[in-house]
């Protein structure tokens, strides 16, 4: 669309303001609401944001200790350029567009999550592949309004829908259905494709599935669907969290399904099982898995989810049709052949994880990286030392990323160095700003920091 077309589109849809949207490194949905004229005037240059978009932590404290990239200075401006392909009616009278951050010199900001994912898909396109994905969103909904949740320090809340166990239960109370049907209706009205929703394993936990599509589009829908889930919860007087673990109950994930497509169709498909492309893709993904953990499990709380036998992977393994491994290879189907990357918590920024996984997979395809042997059997409860474990803390994961040789090549040195600085700060902040003892279970510091923002 050209500017004149956008102006007409805004008028045709009765739009009086436009929300520009993005995620920060922590996955928080951020943006500004603009008048239509301001939005139209920012189509080329973008909308100015202070560089602290990528410079402050979830407590709004400056993240220091890293070498500043060129776009960071004395609170320099960076610019969010709307991607007009994402323009939609967000609510009556309000439009929305997702954007990417650019520097004042006109270069893409090297740590912008969406830029990184677009860079990887551009590389895939050069190789003749499209990257397709689907993502699962897990969250816990509470009866209490968010104001009450805040007043209670996010403790002692009542999961919506009763405390009956099991999963996939249809016999939930009406308030639970009312919430999810409202989410569904809102997604439909915005034009965000959804596939399914259901009751999940822990009390109050739900899963919403973002269907398969181009990986950037899927990440956009992931970000927007989570925002819709928050907005609907607040409108109905409830609260919601995407923390990987909000209590001692089962954790929450963001399983990411990825495959490559070429002119022949699904490039992972072979009648014999995994195609050569899929095998090498898995080879790259597995080689970078320990380092990718820092992105898939970005916060202190993320690691509390890694409880063997509860569902999340705890080992650096892959297997055919095996959900106890970190990567489940779904093979033998001309349409559905894919990997399911099961490591990310529900608190991960899917743009970043998708960029790392797809990028590492492409690295494997380009360099013909052979994967380790597929793991057979249950990948939990194994004898110590028999299988490499997923890094168990934010600091272990940072060390693994620092040692990784693939991800700097895939995501850029600038991003990896900067990200490591942010994770070191998260570790320091937890310990020195009131977090407490990691061994003592979920802390008030974690709830206060993560409940509303991840």
């Amino acid at each position, binding site marked *: 669309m050209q500017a004149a077309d956008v102006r007409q589109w805004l008028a045709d849809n009765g739009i009086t303001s436009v929300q520009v949207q993005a995620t920060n490194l922590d996955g928080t949905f951020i943006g500004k609401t603009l008048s239509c004229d301001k939005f139209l005037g920012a189509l080329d240059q973008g909308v100015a944001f202070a560089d602290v978009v990528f410079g402050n932590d979830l407590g709004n404290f*400056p993240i*220091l*200790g*890293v*070498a*500043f990239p060129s776009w*960071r*200075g*004395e*609170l320099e401006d960076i610019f969010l350029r709307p991607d007009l392909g994402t323009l939609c009616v967000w609510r009556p009278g309000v439009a929305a567009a997702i954007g990417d951050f650019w520097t004042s010199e006109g270069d893409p900001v090297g740590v912008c999550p969406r830029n990184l994912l677009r860079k990887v898909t551009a590389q895939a396109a050069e190789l003749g592949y499209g990257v397709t994905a689907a993502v699962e969103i897990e969250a816990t909904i509470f009866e209490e309004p968010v104001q009450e949740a805040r007043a209670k320090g996010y403790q002692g809340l009542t999961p919506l829908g009763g405390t009956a166990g099991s999963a996939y239960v249809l016999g939930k109370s009406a308030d639970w259905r009312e919430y999810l049907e409202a989410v569904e209706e809102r997604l439909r009205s915005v034009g965000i494709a959804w596939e399914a929703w259901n009751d999940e394993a822990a009390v109050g936990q739900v899963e919403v599935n973002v269907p398969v599509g181009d990986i950037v589009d899927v990440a956009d829908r992931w970000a927007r669907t989570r925002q819709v889930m928050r907005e609907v919860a607040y409108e109905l007087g409830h609260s919601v969290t995407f923390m990987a673990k909000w209590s001692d109950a089962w954790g929450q994930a963001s399983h990411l399904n990825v495959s490559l497509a070429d002119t022949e169709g699904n490039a992972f498909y072979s009648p014999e099982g995994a195609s050569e492309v899929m095998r090498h893709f898995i080879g790259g993904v597995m080689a970078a898995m320990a380092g990718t953990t820092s992105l898939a499990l970005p916060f202190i709380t993320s690691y509390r989810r890694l409880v063997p036998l509860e569902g999340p992977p705890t080992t650096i393994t892959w297997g055919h049709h095996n959900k106890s491994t970190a990567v489940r290879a779904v093979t033998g189907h001309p349409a559905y052949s894919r990997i399911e990357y099961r490591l990310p918590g529900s608190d991960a920024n899917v743009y970043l994880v998708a960029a790392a996984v797809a990028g590492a997979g492409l690295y494997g395809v380009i360099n013909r990286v052979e994967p380790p042997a597929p793991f057979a059997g249950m990948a939990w409860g194994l004898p110590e030392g028999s299988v490499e474990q997923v890094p*168990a*803390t934010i*600091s*272990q994961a940072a060390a693994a990323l620092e040692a990784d040789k693939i991800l700097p090549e895939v995501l850029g040195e600038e991003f990896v*160095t900067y990200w490591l*600085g942010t994770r*070191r700060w998260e*570790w*320091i902040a937890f*310990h*020195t*700003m*009131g*977090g*407490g*003892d*990691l*061994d003592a279970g979920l*802390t008030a510091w974690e709830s206060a920091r993560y409940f509303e923002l991840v």
Partner: protein
Amino acid sequence: MIATEADPTPLVLSLARTLRASVRVPELRDLVAQTNGSVSLKSVTDAQSATLTFDGSGVLVSHGLAFGAEPVDLAFDPEYTVGETADPVARAAAKLLSPPLPDWRVAGAHFWEVSQGTPGFPGRLVLVCLEEEAELVFGEGDDVYEVHGYGPALAAVLSGQIDHFLYAVGFGVVSVVGSGAHLSAMCGAHWKVRFGG
């Protein structure tokens, strides 16, 4: 002689760095050799805690409180101050956790040595000691950062005391001349020293 557990916390690393400074002093090194037993230390200002285990030849620093231990207070200002106690191991720990400050020039030289040439770190670091009206310059060129302060404050900050270099600036312990990018790099350099670099 001074060891830490695997995957140590910031407090564990900082205590270990402090103990390493102590064992460079002969009488404090002897004190380590004379001490057996453990002491659990609990911060008086936040939830951090750590345990020092002495075995007559060295010290293992680990996070948390030893099972059943009666913790001893640990204060950070000045860093570190162990609370009143009659326990001989805790009293030894108190001495070992407050070693004499190095001369600010020595601390500055180590600070420079650890981080010079790393991305973002200034090419020239100027330390200005106020009471001595003295200046110490490391490196050369126009990419310069200045840190001003009294000798003991410079020595404390540059040898890794205080949780965050930003606090040292924010609370006026030292003052600085330079850019935000330099400040960020200095924070990283300070943690490198604080955590044992």
